[in-house]
């Protein structure tokens, strides 16, 4: 017999279960199904087997997109994690500076993505933006940033790095859990700030940082859509056409829903694979940092 408690819990969980089924699981299944078809959204889908995947995998646009996404992850994820860690250490304390740091680091994370994109359009604008002004002051000549391959890529990275508030908060909370007595003990033994960071803070935060990294890889992969869509449209010359943007363009702008679905499935598989790799790394590091 099920207890009242269990029934209550099931009842409360119901909206979420229904929501997840209707909004996530069902569309995912349908999408996965379309990935094996040719479908333009108007005429009925025709089964194509693995043909759609074969086409997509041979598509140079996918290869280019993998490169763009790879660069983005390679630059943005470490910067977000290391930045979050350094800012968390700076913000850990009761000084006025620490308090100001906490607020100003988290603030960009609550600004909606489109607004952030507009801010960055202004920042890198060669005529009116602060970046151009700084360049002029230092004797440089500001040029249009977003039509340069690396200018555009770095702008997207910068935008995502400024929204590192969540990782920052988690790192800060984890840092505060470390007992001060460990730092006293290390100081008594002669450990200077850098040694205390390397021998205590870093190994004890390593599990949290790796989990954040795993999550960040997954999240950044999907979050790369909005800024690239609003800021660069994937340009110049597809230099910032990340996987989610490619999925969107192929499926909805070019109307090839079959290939779009196949690309979405590939994106998901890649994300999961990256997450699993990061989790394996987490286990390895945990074992290493515990046993040393």
């Amino acid at each position, binding site marked *: 017999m099920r207890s009242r408690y269990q029934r209550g819990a099931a009842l409360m969980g119901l909206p979420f279960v229904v929501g997840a089924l209707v909004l996530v699981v069902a569309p995912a299944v349908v999408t996965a199904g379309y990935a094996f078809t040719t479908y333009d959204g108007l005429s009925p889908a025709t089964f194509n087997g693995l043909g759609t995947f074969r086409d997509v995998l041979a598509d140079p646009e996918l290869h280019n997109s993998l490169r763009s996404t790879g660069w983005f992850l390679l630059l943005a994820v470490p910067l977000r994690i290391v930045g979050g860690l350094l800012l968390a250490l700076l913000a850990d304390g009761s000084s006025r500076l620490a308090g100001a740091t906490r607020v100003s680091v988290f603030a960009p994370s609550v600004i909606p993505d489109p607004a952030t994109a507009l801010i960055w359009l202004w920042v890198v604008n060669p005529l009116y933006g602060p970046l151009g002004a700084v360049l002029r002051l230092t004797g440089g000549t500001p040029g249009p940033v977003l039509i340069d391959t690396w200018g555009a890529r770095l702008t997207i990275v910068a935008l995502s790095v400024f929204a590192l508030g969540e990782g920052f908060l988690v790192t800060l909370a984890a840092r505060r859990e470390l007992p001060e007595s460990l730092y006293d003990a290390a100081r*008594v033994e002669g450990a200077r700030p850098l040694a205390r960071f390397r021998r205590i803070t870093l190994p004890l935060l390593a599990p949290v940082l790796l989990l954040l990294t795993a999550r960040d890889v997954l999240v950044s992969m999907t979050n790369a859509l909005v800024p690239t869509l609003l800021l660069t449209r994937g340009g110049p010359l597809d230099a910032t056409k990340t996987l989610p943007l490619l999925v969107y363009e192929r499926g909805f702008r070019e109307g090839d829903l079959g290939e779009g679905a196949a690309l979405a499935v590939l994106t998901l598989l890649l994300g999961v694979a990256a997450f699993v790799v990061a989790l394996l790394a987490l286990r390895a590091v945990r074992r290493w940092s515990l046993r040393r």
Partner: protein
Amino acid sequence: MSAGVAVHQLSFGYGKDGRSAVSEVDLSVAAGEVLAVVGPSGSGKSTLLRLVNGLLTPTAGSVHVGGRDVTRASPEARPVAMVFQGYALFPHLDVAANIGFGLAVRKAPRSERRRRVLEVADRLQLSDLLHRLPGELSGGERQRVALARALLRDPVVFCLDEPLSALDPVLRTAARRDLEQLLRTDGRCALYVTHDQSEAMTLGDRVALLRDGRVEQVGTPRELYDTPATTFVAAFVGTHPMALLPVGSLGLNAAAGVATVGVRAEHVELVPGTEALVTAVDDLGHEQVADLEVDGHRLLARLAPGSGLRRGDRTGLRVSRHTGFDAAGQRVA
């Protein structure tokens, strides 16, 4: 005095309001001696310890260790070892790395690290546990690791902050004996901070009682017990606190200037009579302790087991010895 620890007019204030956590403390610990520092929480015990081990720099006064002025020296430059409350073992490092942490930080050669870690581990019977993590050790084992880490520094003085508080009562007695033995060997000395007066009395060769950052009294446990300098000491020291009664009660005749008399439980003798009401009797096995009420004042009496006294009984009493304190709480000779 032989070269142990000496602090002179040591003061330290926290915060902007200049509130002192330790003020004008004079204490010394001779080689081979254990000085127990005891006091209620917030009395400045831990601050005193941090001034000696160098985690804090005093606002005034000096610290000498091993005959050397270390007032402004960094913690690692002092011949001082620290055993923290709760031991502060590094949870991610195994026993060997915990013990050798200081050597690793100072980049000592691997062979020297190994040799010295094995040496102290052997002395504290930790040789079989070197590759365990702190989380896999018992409380007693953790204490030995903390002691080994301290011993590796070859210190003049051990600073111990409530080293037994993390242990359960059964382990405590054994751990206390081990500790005693270790602290006194090789002419080292120890500053032992505790809030537990019975621990201070049994472990300390001498005891310093702190109150609001000042030394209330320092002396042998016997001196503190028999001749408390103030009413505060009288009430703090001893399993059964000294009963403090206004002069004139119980018909005790006291010297001039005495405002309060202190009476220890063992100096109360029960005689036939009715002036005292028995409000409670605790049977401790080897003795009984009776709570008595006389003229609205409370005092304790120690009785032989099987006294037959019960709550609600009335009895007479005779005080064989008492201590007099003046209106400010100071003992009157």
